[in-house]
C-alpha cells in the first residue's frame, strides 16, 4: 500500500501541487487522471523520488520515503518498478539485457537464474523470441511490454506507469492496460497508472483519483465516475466524444 499525504510542490514559486492526499491499495490498478499539465507527472516523480516534494509524505507500507535514511530509501527504490512514457529502454542494450539490467546491478543472482527469470517475465508480458532484438527494432507496443517486464523483473512490489498507452493504437492500448491489470492482480503489486485516457479509466479504473490544476477534486471507482457531480470531472469525462454520445442517448 502506498499513502500520500498533503504533497506540495513548487517550481520557481509557482505551486504545481496544492496538497494531494491519496491511498493506493495493492492488487488493483490505481489511476491518477486529469488533463495535460495538471501535475500528474510531477506527482509521480515526487512519489518515486525523482523530485523532492516541498511538503508532505509518501509512505510505502509504513515506511516514510522522503524521511528515511539513504540505505532505507535505496531499499524501497529496489522494490519500485516504473514504466516510462516512451519505454525508456537503454538504446545500447538488447531486449534481454534491458530486462536483466536491474538483476545485474541490484542483485547477485547467478547467471542461469537471471536468464530464467528474464525469460519468465518476457513470456508473461507476451514476448517470446525477441531477446536479441535492439529497442530500435521493435514496435511501440513491444517497447511498453519490455518496459513492463523490466519494471517487474526484480519482484517489484510497487509499479508506476506514466501514460502507458500514449502513442499506441486503441487496440494495443487496451491490451497493455489489461496486461498491467493482470500483472497487478497476479503478483499483488501496488500499481499506480497515470493517464488522461478515458478508455483506460473505463477498462481498469478500480480506484481513480482525479486531479485538476494541481488539486485532487474527486476519488472513486469507474462505476461512480460517470455520475459524479464535480463539474471539472464531468468536463473531463465527457470531452470523450463517445461517452458524450452515450450520455446524450440516455437523456433522450
Amino acid at each position, binding site marked *: 500500500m502506498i499513502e500520500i499525504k498533503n504533497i506540495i510542490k513548487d517550481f520557481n514559486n509557482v505551486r504545481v501541487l496544492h496538497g494531494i492526499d491519496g491511498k493506493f491499495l495493492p492488487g488493483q490498478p490505481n489511476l491518477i487522471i486529469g488533463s495535460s499539465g495538471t501535475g500528474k507527472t510531477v506527482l509521480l516523480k515526487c512519489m518515486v523520488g525523482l523530485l523532492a516534494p516541498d511538503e508532505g509524505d509518501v509512505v510505502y507500507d509504513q515506511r516514510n520515503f522522503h524521511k528515511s535514511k539513504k540505505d532505507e530509501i535505496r531499499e524501497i*527504490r*529496489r522494490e519500485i518498478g516504473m514504466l516510462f512514457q516512451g519505454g*525508456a529502454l537503454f538504446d545500447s542494450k538488447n531486449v534481454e539485457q534491458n530486462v536483466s539490467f536491474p538483476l545485474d*546491478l541490484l542483485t547477485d543472482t547467478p547467471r542461469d537464474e537471471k536468464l530464467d527469470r528474464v525469460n519468465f517475465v518476457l513470456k508473461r508480458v507476451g514476448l517470446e523470441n525477441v531477446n536479441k532484438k535492439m529497442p530500435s527494432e521493435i514496435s511501440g507496443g513491444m517497447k511498453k511490454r519490455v518496459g513492463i517486464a523490466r519494471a517487474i523483473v526484480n519482484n517489484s512490489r510497487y509499479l508506476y506507469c506514466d501514460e502507458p498507452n500514449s502513442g499506441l493504437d486503441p487496440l494495443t492500448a487496451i491490451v497493455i492496460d489489461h496486461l498491467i491489470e493482470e500483472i497487478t492482480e497476479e503478483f499483488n503489486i501496488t500499481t499506480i497508472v497515470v493517464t488522461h485516457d478515458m478508455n483506460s479509466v473505463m477498462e481498469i479504473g478500480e480506484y481513480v483519483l482525479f486531479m485538476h490544476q494541481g488539486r485532487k477534486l474527486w476519488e472513486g471507482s469507474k462505476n461512480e465516475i460517470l455520475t459524479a457531480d464535480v463539474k471539472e470531472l464531468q468536463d473531463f469525462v465527457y470531452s470523450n466524444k463517445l461517452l458524450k454520445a452515450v450520455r446524450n442517448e440516455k437523456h433522450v
Partner: protein
Amino acid sequence: MQIIGRYFLFLHSLIIKRESFNTYVRLIIDECIKVGINSIFIVAIVSTFIGAVTAVQTAYNIVSPLIPNYVVSLVVRDMTLLELAPTITAIVFAGKVGSNISGELGTMRISEQIDALEVMGINSSSFLVLPKIIACLLMYPLLVILAGFLALIGGYLAATLTGAMTPDEFIYGIRADFIEYNVTFALIKSVVFAFLISSISAFTGYFTIGGALEVGRASTKAVTSSCIAILSADYLLAQLLL
C-alpha cells in the same frame, strides 16, 4: 558563475560511488574501446598532416645559409611535442568524443533513460559519466603519444620526400638538444585536457532539457565550451609549468 558552481556539484556527485567495483571495470573497458575506435583514425590523419605541414613551412621559412638544416626537424619535434600533439589533438578529440558523450547523455536524458536508472536506485551520474571520464583519462594520453609519433613521421616524410633535408639530418635534428621534461609536460597537458573535455561534455549532455533539438545544441555547446577550456588551460599550464 552559477553554471560553474553546478559543474562542481556535478563532479562531486560522480565520486559518491555506489555500484560495485566490478561493474565499473566492465563499463570502463567498454568506454575505452568506444573512445579509442571513435577517435584514432581522425587523430592519426590530423597529426600526420600537421607534422608534414610544420616541416614544409619551417623549411620554407628558414632560408638563411647560417642555420643548419637539422633545425627544421628540431622545430617540428618541439612544436608537436609541446603544442600540436596535445592541444590540436584535444580540439579534434573534443569534436569527436566530446560531442559523442554529450549527445549520448542528452539522448538518455530526454528519453527518460536517466530517470529510469535513478528510479532503480542507481546513481546515474556516476554510473554513466565516471566510466567515460576515466576512459578518456586512460586513452587520451595514448592518443597524444600516437599523435606525436605520427607527426614526426609526417614531418620526416615531407622533409625528405621534398628533398628539403636528408634522412640523417632529420634524425639528427630530432635528437638534438632534446629536453625530456617536454614529454612529461605533454602528458600532464593531455591528462588535464582529457578531464576537461570529458567532464564538460558530460555536464552539458547530462543536464539537457527538451527534445532532439536541444540534444544537438548540447553537443555543439560541449565542443565550444571544451575548446575554450582547453585553450585557457593550455595557457595556464604553460605559465605554471614551463
